[in-house]
């Protein structure tokens, strides 16, 4: 018997996506008879997106016999806290979403399913500069691993392409009143804004921005691909452009989207898709170990992950290179309250 | 123990406990209508506790308290006050951040519906206590101790109660103000007001009272006519001392 253990973050929307998607995938595998007839068991632990909890949960997971793979966590900060524990226990850790380059540098046991921030920064720059044609850009960013790295890399990418970043401003997690920032933005007179904030802060920011009569084009990165962003921001979200490696409207993803929707009654978001692929990559590696007749250990699964063939999932192709992958983006725009493919 | 005609207030063998400590042991006393009754005793003799049990501030564990034919032991203070009792609390207890006017007005709270009567009584209080009239808008907390005691008396008067309970009105006052306070009490008595008075200053209390009870360690040790008690050698020794 083998076991998976995603660590779910507190931000419930993300956590639910993770859990749902992994469960969906494993149900499918187990319904088909598991791996060589052995079912895969899933253990879910909530790390509340806190490093301390992530470390505690990681200890608990590594102390559970039979665990050979773990999926999580959501933020780089929490993933990093858990990483040394998994490395010590020689259990591979696939984070669907941790995008900070440092994560996969921790040990040979860390893998990710999404692009690193270095890759994403170029997509960010493309979103605001190439697709939305903005040249004088402001970037509010969240003061966390992802935000700080993103603003640095994105600014560099934009300026390399000939754009200009007029103003960047750190936003503390949980901030809600952006009017002072918006007055500053107005005074800077930009022609585009790239929002490097979690969707909750981003939705309030964009509402207040539009309310203040600032109608410049707005672009966003991964967090804004959450349907929750549109739900919270309402009309203010219209016209926002994002890049994503998963688009549920894509016909080739229909099987996954339909299955997910049938079970959970909502559209899968990018995070669900990434977790789904993390499960897929992991199961593939585990079955290769089982089929090779080698003992099923974390070390064996890691080696298969690192050296195995490419895996084609719903978010693109995963071929690990030092634990990292590179996937191509799709550009989406918010129209009539949903994401649609951006027409050029 | 009880007299034949029903008293306005009668306390019948009450015990009071504070936590594990017993403060009163079977204390009985009564106050007839129109009478001034004084409760004397040293510190911690239980005299204030007796008064507090009448007012509902502490609940007796044993015994009954009957006011005007109704049992009131264990009732909330507001219920007791509603039955026609006014209180001049120990240490005056005026509302420091409210004006003299507002303090007095609150005395009439149980009969707040009778606006005209209150206005008239208020005017009377100001005639009696010209110093309060001068300070109507002043915050009560800025008054001197003696003035505050006057305010407390005026406030209680506005209740127009059939029984006034007064706790240590002379405490902390200079002799001159003690005189002034007792002047008022003598006039209340003359007007037929029923008063239950707790006082440490036995000499002056016995001058005012018709009857008195002496408490010691929570027991009634002596009771009787005020004049007789004032002449009693034991009382003189214990409570009048050399003043």
């Amino acid at each position, binding site marked *: 018997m083998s076991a998976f253990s995603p660590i779910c973050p507190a931000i419930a929307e993300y956590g639910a996506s993770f859990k749902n998607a992994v469960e969906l995938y494993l149900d499918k595998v187990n319904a088909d008879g598991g791996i060589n007839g052995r079912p895969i068991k899933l253990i879910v632990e909530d790390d509340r997106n806190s490093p301390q909890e992530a470390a505690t949960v990681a200890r608990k997971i590594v102390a559970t016999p039979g665990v050979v793979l773990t999926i999580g966590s959501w933020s780089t900060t929490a993933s990093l806290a858990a990483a040394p524990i998994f490395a010590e226990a020689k259990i591979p850790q696939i984070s669907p979403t941790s995008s900070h380059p440092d994560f996969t540098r921790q040990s040979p046991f860390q893998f990710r399913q999404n692009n690193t921030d270095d890759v994403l920064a170029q997509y960010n720059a493309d979103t605001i500069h190439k697709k939305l044609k903005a040249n004088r850009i402001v970037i509010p960013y969240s003061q966390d691993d992802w935000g700080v790295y993103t603003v640095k890399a994105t600014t560099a990418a934009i300026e390399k392409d000939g754009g200009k970043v007029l103003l960047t401003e750190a936003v503390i997690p949980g901030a809600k009143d952006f009017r002072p920032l918006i007055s500053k933005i107005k005074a800077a007179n930009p022609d585009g804004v790239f929002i490097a904030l979690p969707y909750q802060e981003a939705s309030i920011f964009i509402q207040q921005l539009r309310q203040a009569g600032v109608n410049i084009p707005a672009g966003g990165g991964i967090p804004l691909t959450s349907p929750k962003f549109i739900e919270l921001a309402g009309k203010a979200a219209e016209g926002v452009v994002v890049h994503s490696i998963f688009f549920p409207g894509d016909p080739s993803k229909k099987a996954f989207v339909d299955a997910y929707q049938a079970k959970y009654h909502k559209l899968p978001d990018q995070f669900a898709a990434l977790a789904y692929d993390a499960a897929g990559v992991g199961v593939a590696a585990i079955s290769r170990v089982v089929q090779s007749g080698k003992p099923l250990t974390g070390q064996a699964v890691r080696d298969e992950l690192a050296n195995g063939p490419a895996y084609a999932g719903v978010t693109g192709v995963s071929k690990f290179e030092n634990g990292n992958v590179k996937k191509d983006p799709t550009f989406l725009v918010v129209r009539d309250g949903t994401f649609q493919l951006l027409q050029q | 123990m009880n007299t034949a005609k029903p008293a306005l207030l009668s306390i019948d063998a009450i015990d009071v406990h504070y936590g594990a400590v017993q403060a009163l042991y079977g204390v009985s006393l009564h106050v007839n209508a129109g009478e001034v009754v004084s409760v004397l005793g040293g510190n911690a003799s239980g005299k204030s506790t007796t008064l507090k049990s009448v007012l509902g501030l502490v609940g007796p564990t044993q015994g009954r308290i009957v006011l005007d034919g109704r049992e009131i032991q264990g009732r909330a203070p507001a219920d007791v006050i509603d039955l026609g009792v006014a209180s001049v609390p120990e240490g005056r207890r005026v509302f420091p951040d409210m004006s003299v006017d507002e303090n007095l007005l609150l005395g009439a709270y149980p009969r707040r519906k009778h606006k005209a009567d209150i206005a008239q009584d208020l005017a009377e209080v100001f005639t009696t206590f010209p110093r309060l009239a001068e300070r109507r808008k002043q915050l009560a907390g800025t008054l001197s101790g003696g003035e505050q005691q006057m305010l407390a008396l005026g406030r209680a008067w506005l209740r127009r109660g059939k029984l006034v309970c007064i706790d240590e009105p002379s405490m902390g006052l200079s002799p001159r103000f003690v005189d002034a306070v007792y*002047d008022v009490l003598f006039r209340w008595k003359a007007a037929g007001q029923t008063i239950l008075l707790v006082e440490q200053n036995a000499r002056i209390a016995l001058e005012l009272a018709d009857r008195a009870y002496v408490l010691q360690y929570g027991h009634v040790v002596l009771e009787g006519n005020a004049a007789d008690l004032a002449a009693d050698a034991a009382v003189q020794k214990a409570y009048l001392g050399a003043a």
Partner: protein
Amino acid sequence: MVHSLPTPGSTQPGLHVQGLSRHFSGVKAVDDVSFDLLPGEILALVGPNGAGKSTLIQLVSGVERPTAGRILLGDVRLDGRGPERIARLGMGRSFQTSRVFPALTVWDSVRLGTQAGLLRGGGTMHKDPGSGHGRLSNPLAEIAGELLGLPGWRRRRAEADARAETALKRFGDRLWPRRDQPAFSLSYANRRRLEIARVLAAEPRYVLLDEPAAGMNPSETAELTDLLLALRAEQPTLGLLVVEHKLSLVRRIADRVVVLNQGRVLATGTPAEALDDPEVVEAYLGRRRTRPAESDAHLG
């Protein structure tokens, strides 16, 4: 017991209050008051309520700051210093509301009275008059002494405890048998005694007592009077300032009386002189009672 005299060179031994005033938003609680309290003297401060007696004690003990005037202990200025510095200069005081550290045991409460002396090298308050302004031992030395139980520190502690014990035992068996009970369980009068015991445990040079006999019955008051007289006999240089309404006590113990009225000094002198002054009688004792006629007695 022999006590050292004030430091040589101190021009005027004693407590000197000079032109002291304290105004609270326009109200002159204390207005240009001057008096002296000499070593070995018992001075009583009397006056009607609101005359400013308590405010004066608050000023002298540093709890309140004066608006104008000076307070000198020998040649050391007290005004402007905080209460703890003044206490460490040898000035003990009690409060009108007896402040006794309610949850502490009676014994601990008294021992706190000796702590400041302990910090000053084991000496008592009166041994170091004027000089040094209450310099304290190093807190690190204190921690080391307590944590490691250093012999020097333990000796100082034992001496301090002996002083606390003496102070408690002054009140006969009123306090000593109750030493392990929490202070809040004491009767009102015993709390007053406990507070006075704490003040005396510090062996101060001057003591300010704010209505020490309030809440005591006549026999208890007499007992306290005797105690204060005994104290004076034992410590001939102790200066005592007593605020008191009970004139029986004042007449028995006071060498001199200062009568205050509306913040000002109305009279000063021996008890007989001051208390029988007609102006004082008028202000303080009030007129003789005349029973009001029944007719004008509607309200009061």
